[in-house]
């Protein structure tokens, strides 16, 4: 890996640290094909512990595929992914370990509709972490207070609004005490009033020092919370940079084109 030439500006694949933080995710030379269509080509990306990385790009650029490869919801065809020192291979034990370290929040919330909110949150801890019921429920209530909806605990997801559902989904992922949180366009299915309540929660998470990888179209959020912004197009990482430089003075032409369309 040390002699792979890096073509992505801003990424040093030799590094064991990024900005003084130890690496928690390493991706090197990752390719992913859907049939003959190449969704990811030669992805090199390293994420440090506690870093907030925001991935932006046009639709079809492979942003969702990228983060879904991290927790093995998609299976990468080539390259190497290492999460918190565990390599992501076909070994079921590795996969299970990595899935415990990562939590994911989906665009469509994907709450379990037949369980109450609190059962949604406690399902993982009780079944996987073997937590006793009372302890799991106490933790769940703490998390619900953290996302500011403790009164919805006994309701069913169908009875909540979109913003509330997404916050429950965030609480559900946090209940497993992951080291890394992955967000796949968390606010894209919400209407504008609810976007801010969800973004607040994510911002608060960022401030607590959790490693976040957020795929989003919310540029305001990227500017405010990101340590690094990654721009992807056509399955490749086009540019990486700190938000101040990225939004005001992008290096690549493709980045400029994208930003001019959305800002």
């Amino acid at each position, binding site marked *: 890996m040390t002699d792979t030439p890096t073509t992505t500006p801003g990424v040093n694949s030799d590094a064991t640290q990024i900005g003084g933080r130890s690496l928690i995710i390493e991706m090197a030379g990752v390719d992913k094909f859907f049939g003959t269509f190449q969704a990811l080509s030669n992805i090199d990306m390293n994420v440090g512990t506690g870093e907030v990385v925001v991935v932006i790009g046009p639709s079809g650029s492979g942003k969702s595929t990228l983060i879904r490869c991290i*927790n*093995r*919801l998609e299976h990468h065809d080539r390259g190497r992914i290492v999460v918190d020192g565990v390599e992501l291979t076909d070994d079921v034990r590795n996969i*299970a370990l990595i*899935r*415990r370290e*990562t*939590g*994911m929040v*989906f665009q*469509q919330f*994907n*709450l*379990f*509709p*037949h369980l109450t909110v609190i059962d949604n949150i406690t*399902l*993982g801890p*009780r*079944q*996987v*972490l*073997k*937590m*006793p*019921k*009372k*302890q*799991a429920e106490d933790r769940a209530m703490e998390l619900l207070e953290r996302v500011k909806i403790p009164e919805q605990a006994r309701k*069913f997801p*169908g*009875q909540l609004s979109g913003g509330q559902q997404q916050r429950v*989904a965030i609480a*559900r*992922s946090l*209940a*497993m005490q992951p080291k890394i949180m992955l967000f796949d366009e968390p606010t894209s299915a919400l209407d504008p009033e609810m976007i801010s309540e969800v973004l607040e929660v994510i911002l608060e998470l960022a401030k607590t020092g959790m490693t976040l990888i957020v795929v989003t179209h919310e540029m305001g959020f990227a500017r405010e919370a990101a340590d690094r912004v990654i721009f992807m197009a056509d399955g490749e990482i086009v540019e990486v940079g700190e938000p101040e430089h990225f939004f005001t003075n992008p290096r690549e032409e493709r980045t400029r084109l994208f930003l001019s369309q959305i800002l």
Partner: protein
Amino acid sequence: MGRTADIASTQADLTAVPSAPPSRRVLALLVDALILALVGVISIWQLGLRLLDDYSDIPELALAWVFIAVAPAAIVIIMVVDAVRIGQTPGMAAAGVRTIHDGTTKRTLPTGDPRVPEPGIPALWRDVRVLRLAGQALAAVVVVALIRWMFHNLIVRMDEVGLPKDFDFLDAAYGVALRDAYGFDVADPVWKALLVGLQNTAVASVVGIFIATVVGLFVGIARLSSNWLVAKGASLYVESLRNIPPLVVIIFFGAALFTYGPFPAWAVSRGHFPWQGRWPGSENNWIIISAERWAIPSLGSNDNVGLFWLLVLATAAVAAGVWVWRTRYNNATGNPHHRVLWSVGVFAVIVAACFAALGGPYSWSWPGVSDNGRRVVGGFSTNSGYMALTLGLGLYTASFVAEIIRGSILAVPKGQGEAATSVALKSSQRYRHVVLPQAQRIAIPPYISECANLIKNTSLGLAVAYPDLFLVAVTAWGINFPAPQLILIIMIVYLTMNLIVSALLNMYNRSIQLKER
């Protein structure tokens, strides 16, 4: 622009509106009275008198009713509704009187007043309300006339043939022996025969549904397996059984089990003695197979059976207690409860201990062959018709149930499985806690249909001489009991059975519905 100004000025001085002159109002009342009188006469004459006629006039009257009975009824209804709601009647419209109705008061104006707002009353034959009512009344009349005509034909025909039109035949002697109906004699009344038939139908239905559900569950999930052989085998099962008519499947099983196939026709009529399966060196048969019936050992009860069953009940309570204990244990510590294994295990162990301690409250009744192989005595025997019907129908319906289950699992949104995976649930946990609960909600309505289908298909027992309700009724029909009443009875019975099953399952379905706002 001008119109709104007009309306504004209209509403501004409603208090100053004059009423219609008395002469016009009297004229309006006269016209209304005339219409109502006409309607009343026609209605009373046609509807009142003709309804009491006998059936022979019905076909001609059906059309007459359209023009003479339907229109008056519609007209009366419209007149009443308009009079109440907007204070206008056809008489007033004909006399040129209009009403303004501003929501609280009605004022009548003569024609020509420019402040008159819409709407007026349209001509009756163009009024959409009249047309709608007339259409519905017409449909009702046609249906009633049709039914009465068909019923009339039935009555006439029954009189010609000499069939009784009542239900007294139910007390007459049935006269035909029913296979395997213990306690039924040929002199017993028809209603008792029908009851025996109903019992047989119920037994075949219950066992058939049980087989269909268990096999269907297994095959449905097998078809989703990642093991190629298992998946393809299940597909083969489903595709072959699903595409053959149920009658053919039943006859096939009858033939395969009892006439041809791996179990040769051990029938005395073919010169074969029923096959008796025995442990080497033992005198007892553990199974007897003949072309007519199969028999297995059964349990005959001894003296302390009552005590045994009391103990079984007590053990069931203990098992329930174990279930609750394991659930509490899981809540307290988080370790898996394995409560099914624990309850069932405790139950089985204690029941076995009771069995042994009581010295065996049951003794085996071994089946045997008598009368030179013509009869099977002892044990528990079933006739070939029952075996063919329940097995064939159960396996046939299982193919449909398998597809329902496979479809319901695939219908659970993919995101649910992904969300479960992302909270690190294993595949078995994912199925148990996320996928199957949601799949069951999708599967139950079509499953209700399949249960109903199976119950109805038990009428195919006719083909394998299984004395279900349908065969009993058809036999009665064949010995000249009145067919219309019999068919009515069977239809009502099947309908009731299906409605009961459907109501029970729908209650369950409603209780597990997802809650939304």
